[in-house]
């Protein structure tokens, strides 16, 4: 009896510690999530009156909409461009500036600068730099006699430009996490490899990459999750244009929910995005576990 009371006391302390966070997250994340899940099965007006059960009609409306599939295609294009470019660049840079030296600390600081600014600021500034008429990049290219493209109004170049902005803004963050991981790789491994006469690339593929593999897995997963939610840089530069070529899923959700006021389909498409992210993350985790077993 006494032991039980003691165990309960111990548990109670734990609950007290997590209670404030739990309340905040329940009220402002879990309850809204449940509300969204339930309300996606109803029709209602903008003032949230006249709720009527309509089953999966909101989902049907979204899945029958070509614009949704187009936005999904664009989002996948963005993810497939942004994630590999960003991860590859940050692995190479992190390995190259891993040794502690004054120059490397300068490099580290510079590469991290765009991470510190908001996506709004970075995307607006770069869009201005590439402005067809008064941006410095097209102006310099004209001077050099090169062909000039109005990148954010060109159906082929708008998405690559948005990917470039995203890589520019975020590779420093991935780099810092990988640098932290590289600190944990014991120097003795490299010394042993050097004695065995291993070259630079052998060390990179045989020691560096396997040692930081868990961190790479972590940044790949978080960067995929983040990339599926791409919005700010699209909203600030193209608003989904030209010809819907850069309309991503979140841009589509935003248009539905706040521009055309189709709340139901808006919420339904947001939940579809959530499910998509869950599935992709599950596949990722499973693949990661398999890769780990093969080591």
């Amino acid at each position: 009896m006494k032991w039980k009371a003691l165990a309960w006391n111990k548990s109670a302390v734990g609950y007290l510690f997590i209670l404030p966070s739990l309340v905040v997250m329940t009220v402002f994340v879990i309850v809204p999530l449940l509300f969204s899940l339930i309300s996606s099965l109803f029709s209602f007006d903008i003032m949230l009156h006249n709720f009527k059960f309509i089953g999966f009609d909101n989902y049907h409306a979204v899945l029958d909409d070509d614009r949704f599939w187009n936005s999904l295609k664009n989002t996948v294009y963005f993810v497939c461009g942004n994630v590999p470019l960003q991860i590859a660049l940050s692995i190479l840079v992190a390995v190259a500036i891993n040794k502690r030296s004054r120059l490397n600390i300068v490099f580290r600081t510079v590469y991290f600068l765009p991470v510190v600014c908001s996506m709004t600021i970075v995307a607006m500034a770069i869009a201005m730099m590439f402005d067809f008429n008064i941006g410095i990049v097209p102006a310099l290219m004209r001077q050099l006699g090169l062909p000039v493209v109005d990148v954010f109004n060109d159906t082929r170049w708008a998405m690559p430009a948005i990917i470039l902005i995203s890589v520019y803004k975020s590779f420093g963050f991935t780099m810092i996490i990988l640098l932290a991981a590289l600190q944990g790789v014991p120097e003795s491994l490299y010394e042993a490899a050097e004695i065995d006469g291993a070259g630079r690339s052998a060390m990179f593929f045989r020691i560096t990459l396997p040692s930081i593999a868990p961190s790479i897995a972590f940044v790949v997963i978080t960067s995929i999750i983040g990339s599926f939610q791409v919005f700010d840089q699209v909203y600030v530069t193209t608003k989904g244009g030209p010809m819907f070529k850069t309309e991503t899923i979140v841009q589509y959700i935003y248009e539905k929910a706040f521009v055309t006021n189709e709340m139901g389909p808006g919420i339904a498409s947001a939940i579809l995005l959530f499910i998509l992210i869950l599935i992709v993350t599950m596949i990722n985790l499973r693949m990661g576990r398999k890769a780990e077993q093969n080591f």
Partner: protein
Amino acid sequence: MDSTMNRRKSFDPGRLIIILLLMALAVSTIFPFIWMASTSVKSMGEILGSPQRLLPVHYDFSTYTKIWSEVPFGRYFVNSLVFSCSVVIIALFLNSLAGYAFARLQFKGRGLLFVLILCTMMIPFQVTMTPLFLIIYKLGMIDTYQGLIIPRAADAFGIFMMRQFFLTLPRDLEESGRIDGASEFRIFFQIMLPLCKPAFVTLGVFIFMGNWNDLLYPLLMTNSEQFRPIQAAIALFAGKYGTDYSFVLTGLLLASIPTLVAYLFAQRFFVSGIAMTGIK
């Protein structure tokens, strides 16, 4: 050891190419900032007339005084500071309480609750934003500081990071406290919290930047100039002053100063802070 010394002394073309590439990357990373700064002090005529010039012929600092009177820029700035700093202080405290419990205290359902909290990281903000707005509205907190601050008072990433940090601390610290008969709360406040400095600096800067730089959330939660944070304000006035490049760029630059300062101040803690919290 000997061989590394030798390698450093001898000429290494591979290393030289790598350094050149790193320099090129550094120049292109910093170029937009230089361009922003130089264009913010160009006159309208120069911006339109000679866009290919990086540096202005005449330096015109008028936008830097105009911006405070033309729009309530100081007000936006204060709003963002109050919002971001309050969130940092409250969230560090709540996240470290929860992180400590998940790392060190035994209670029923600990594993399950922790996994649940991690799962919330995968919920896109777009899924919860409409109901979140309604809840804040029903609480009568739209367009108030508390309406901006309270929903951000705890977050999954912070709890996760603090838990990882507490896991790296040696257990004997708290055990000695427990043997002395101190309560869990005293152990937390007097033994554990003072050790959290590097984790607090790192996580604090992350939280500060996240909130200072956020756009959609403050856009939803405020609708008057009186409480509007700076990013939302910029996104709105950029439309109005769209072609007045020097004016808009002045706003963009001024709005990035606090996060730049926070980062430069905290950067020596950063790598070790992240390594310690074991995101890796």
